């Protein structure tokens, strides 16, 4: 009986470990290949390169123009996340605590929007941005991306605010705090757990976003990394190590954020609310 149990557990571990290796291998290969040269990449087949060639990174960063695109990605990610946090928490506070005609209807509209898939709505978005002279501008992209994360973030904030005790607000109100003041001084500081989830998920979405950036930007100098990679890929199609260096540069911040904020990501996915995030991610990725 005992032996049977041990063998069973061993088999389970074998399965889990082999899947884990499959998960890691392509990424390790990518990083390792980025340190090789065009000559050694197919001869030196081990994951740990014999010599470390950093020149791929230098080349990609400078001549490949990845430095600018990297900064663009950082800029878009921070501005969009900042915008979403402010706008979504303001709206969620109103939906959760304030009374005004049309409140539930408006909230319902936001929530339904999360669930209706609109494949190919990048077409009218392109037309719209052209009309507003916002195409090929960072502002146009940032506004579009704020919209992408908005309804899920409102939903997350609202469910959190709904569960918060009202006593703190009452105390603040007695002390003469305005509604704006309560939102800023009471609600936002107390919503750190949900804030972390909103920030991490939206940051990953913006960093990884491809299609809108592809549609919106013509100029290389405005492009975020994901689109620049595709251009870069076309230019240096046979230079694998260089391309892998570009991929690693693009992936590195994601790995860092993932390992640092892992707790919030798992919490985000597993807390029932983020079933909706998933749903909307799938829907809005296409937008």
């Amino acid at each position, binding site marked *: 009986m005992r032996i049977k149990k041990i063998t069973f*557990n061993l088999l*389970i*571990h074998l*399965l*889990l470990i082999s899947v*884990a290796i*499959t*998960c*890691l*291998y*392509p*990424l390790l*290969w990518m990083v390792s*290949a980025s340190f090789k040269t065009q000559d050694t*990449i197919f001869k030196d*087949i081990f994951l740990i390169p014999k010599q470390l060639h950093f020149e791929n990174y230098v080349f990609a960063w400078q001549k490949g123009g990845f430095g600018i695109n990297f900064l663009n990605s950082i800029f878009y990610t921070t501005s969009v996340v900042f915008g979403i946090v402010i*706008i979504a928490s*303001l*709206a969620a506070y*109103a939906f959760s605590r304030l*009374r005004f005609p049309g409140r539930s209807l*408006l909230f319902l509209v*936001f929530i339904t*929007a999360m669930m209706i*898939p*609109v*494949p*190919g*709505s990048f*077409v*009218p*978005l*392109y037309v*719209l941005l052209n009309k507003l002279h916002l195409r090929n501008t960072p502002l146009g992209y940032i*506004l579009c991306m704020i*919209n992408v994360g908005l*309804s899920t973030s*409102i939903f997350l904030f609202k469910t959190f605010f709904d569960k918060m005790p009202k006593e703190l607000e009452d105390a603040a109100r007695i002390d003469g705090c305005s*509604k704006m003041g309560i939102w800023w001084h009471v609600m936002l500081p107390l919503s750190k757990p949900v804030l972390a989830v909103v920030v991490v998920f939206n940051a990953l979405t913006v960093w*990884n*976003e*491809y*299609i809108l950036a592809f549609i919106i930007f013509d100029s290389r100098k405005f492009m975020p990394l*994901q689109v620049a*990679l*595709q251009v870069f*890929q076309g230019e240096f199609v046979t230079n*694998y190590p260089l391309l892998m260096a570009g*991929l690693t540069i*693009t*992936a590195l911040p*994601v790995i860092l954020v*993932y390992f640092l904020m892992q707790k919030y990501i*798992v919490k985000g*996915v597993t807390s029932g609310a983020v079933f909706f995030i*998933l*749903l909307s991610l*799938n829907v809005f*990725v*296409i937008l």
Partner: protein
Amino acid sequence: MKFKSSLENYVFVLPAVLIFSIFYIYPFIQVLFLSFFDWDGIVSFKDATFLGWGNFKEIIFDDPIWWQAMRNAGYITLIALIFQNLLAFLLAWACDREIRMKNFYRLIFFIPPVFSEIVVGLAWRFIINDVEGANIINRMFAAMGHPNFMHSWLSDPKTALTTVAVVHCWKGFGWGFLIFLAGLQTIPRELYEAARVDGANAWESFKKITVPLMIPVTVLVAILTVLGSMQSFVLILGLVGGEFAGHTSVPVLRILSSMRGSSRFGYACAQGISFGMVLVIISFIQYRFSKKVTE
């Protein structure tokens, strides 16, 4: 006073409503509107011709590439529904037990989903599509003494779509895994205890407790898989390249090429609507089906 307070409250939702109306509601209406026109997106809209249902008729009766793309997406989705979710469930079930390194596995399995589809696509492209070089699968065949199985998986039309589907599953199973795991963890342990006291073996308690309680979660995962897999296309751009190749084309890529390639904005919108409706209908059927099963 009450009116003023209401007005003040609107200020809180105003930025959200503004952005949402301009960048979601307006394009949504615009898609419906444009789908009835023949418009190249360049000339002023006044010169566009009204087609009535023309675009939709063309999609249904006169666009074999579109239907090919639909079949391709359906194939990818089917593979994802079966293999990706089966794997996700199996792994979640394994991690739900008292087992060492549970957190480590959970950490690793969610790595593929956090990377962008472009990064994943390009990285895999150079792992599986190079015959003499880094192709790990080919090298394994060679090492096992079957060099004739070596193959350029992504260039051959026969294997390209399946290869895409496999990479898609690799990227996606982490989502299902986390949701299944969360679902399994909500099942009270006392139920299993009680079943064991009553003399049920592991298989019986799995069948009688785990499976029925996991149906809602499974439906959720299935709907998400269908929506995600049917609409995935960036991964294909990374894996196969931007030339919208026929045998790996999917509907969203067709929409993109209607817009970018042939400058038919109205047609692209019509494609988007028909595809969106197909997705809504499939999700709805899945939902109704699950309700029936639970009852």
